[in-house]
């Protein structure tokens, strides 16, 4: 199966620091691929290059066989720090992507309402971000990304600023959402458990120089009940295996 997103020989330096060297990676359509690795391995940089927010020094990214030159309607981004407008209520925040696309107000608000309900925030349309918990804020961020109906969703450590219990609930909800939405998800995380739990494919990135060390594809986990995955032998084996390969890179 050929990928909907293809990263080809991407190089990126920040001054003298080498963030990405000759990175190539394929992301299959309709699947969730995690970019997993210790901090400093360039995973967020890679995600932002795919998003078109950062330009690579050389190499290219293809989405649907089109070269990425900047942000596009085929990709939507979920930010680590939520990036919500503090002066706008939930409804306007979720509809903001559509507002920037000049969609008429009644239309964008009805789309936004649909996704606010899908992420479980019905009743909070008129709330402001400072009235919400971290987990709820990220649900707003997710609803905003879903409402522009992009084929590819890019999630930059979406749950890292959310507490542990909320994160688990969120991960379970995400699995449901992936089944319903049929989109391609690219997910950056530094949590091994999280990556194994939510992914169809895990790309392990290693730092200095940044490279893909291996790609792991859990085969049977997706068909199981989300509540049983965490004690499945395959899940536990993969978590262990990843930890052994990453261990040497963690100081």
């Amino acid at each position: 199966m050929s990928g909907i997103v293809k990263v080809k020989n991407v190089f990126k330096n920040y001054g003298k620091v080498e963030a990405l060297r000759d990175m190539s990676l394929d992301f299959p359509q309709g699947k969730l691929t995690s970019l997993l690795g210790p901090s400093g391995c360039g995973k967020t940089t890679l995600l932002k290059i795919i998003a078109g927010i950062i330009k690579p020094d050389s190499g290219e990214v293809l989405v649907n066989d089109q070269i990425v030159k900047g942000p596009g309607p085929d990709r939507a981004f979920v930010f680590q720090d939520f990036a919500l407008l503090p002066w706008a209520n939930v409804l306007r925040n979720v509809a903001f992507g559509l507002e920037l696309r000049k969609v008429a107000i009644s239309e964008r608000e009805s789309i936004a309402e649909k996704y606010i309900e899908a992420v479980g925030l019905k009743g909070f349309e008129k709330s402001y971000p400072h009235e919400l918990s971290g987990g709820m804020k990220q649900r707003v961020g997710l609803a905003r990304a879903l409402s522009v109906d992009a084929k590819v969703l890019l999630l930059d450590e979406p749950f890292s600023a959310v507490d542990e219990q909320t994160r688990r609930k969120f991960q379970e909800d995400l699995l449901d959402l992936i089944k319903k939405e049929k989109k391609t998800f690219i997910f950056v995380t530094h949590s091994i458990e999280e990556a194994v739990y939510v992914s169809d494919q895990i790309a392990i990135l290693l730092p200095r120089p940044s490279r893909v060390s291996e790609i792991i594809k859990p085969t049977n986990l997706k068909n199981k009940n989300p509540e049983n995955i965490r004690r499945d032998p395959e899940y536990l084996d993969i978590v262990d295996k990843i930890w052994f390969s990453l261990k040497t890179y963690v100081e």
Partner: protein
Amino acid sequence: MNRSLILKLFSIIFVLGAWEIGGRIPISFAFPTFFDSIVAFFNLILDGTMFKAYAETLKPLIVGVLISAVIGISIGVLIGLSDKIDWLISPIFIVMQAAPLAALIPLLILAYGIGLTSKVFVVCIMAMPVIVLNTASSVKSVSSSLKEMCRSFLGTKVDEIFKIILPASAPIIFAGLRLGISAGFIGAILSELKITPTGIGDIITYSRSIADYPSMYAAIFSIILLAVLFLNFLEVIELKLFKGSNTKHVND
């Protein structure tokens, strides 16, 4: 809220009380009591002198503040958006802020005469730097992730300025505007004392020359009162405008 109101009232009573006592001692024969000044204040209002005076004084003030606000905020946004413009223009306003204005007034009179233009200039020189510098620093400190968010959802540069940068920096721009307006008040009075005595500056100069000190202090008191009332009015507007993001609001 109630408690803060009581404390504010207390602080006003404290200052006015000190004034009254200072006038009764008296500290100087040129220092009237608060009550004498208030009587003079109402006399000036009743015979219409005060209104005529303010019609004159508010002209350079309003024109100057409006010019400073419009040009100041625009320049501030440009400085905040571009480092090159920052290096080119910021020094002018930093020098302007530090310059001893009274010493520059003769130059302004040489260039623009003793009319309204010079007075408007004085108000602008007082008000503009703080508006420009506040705007620039608030535009610079807008969260980069909000700007990235705008770009990644296909926002244009214009969207970024009007939907992200301006609303995000509006509270600090407004605070700068308030500082600028209070500096503008100082500028307006300074220009009337240093260029030509008109309006409130005329009442102050004239009543001093005939030793009518209560009227002089009444005029000074009126301008302070007007400035405080106006700034409070501005704060009320500010609170109304930024209801959603008033969690980090600076209160005074």
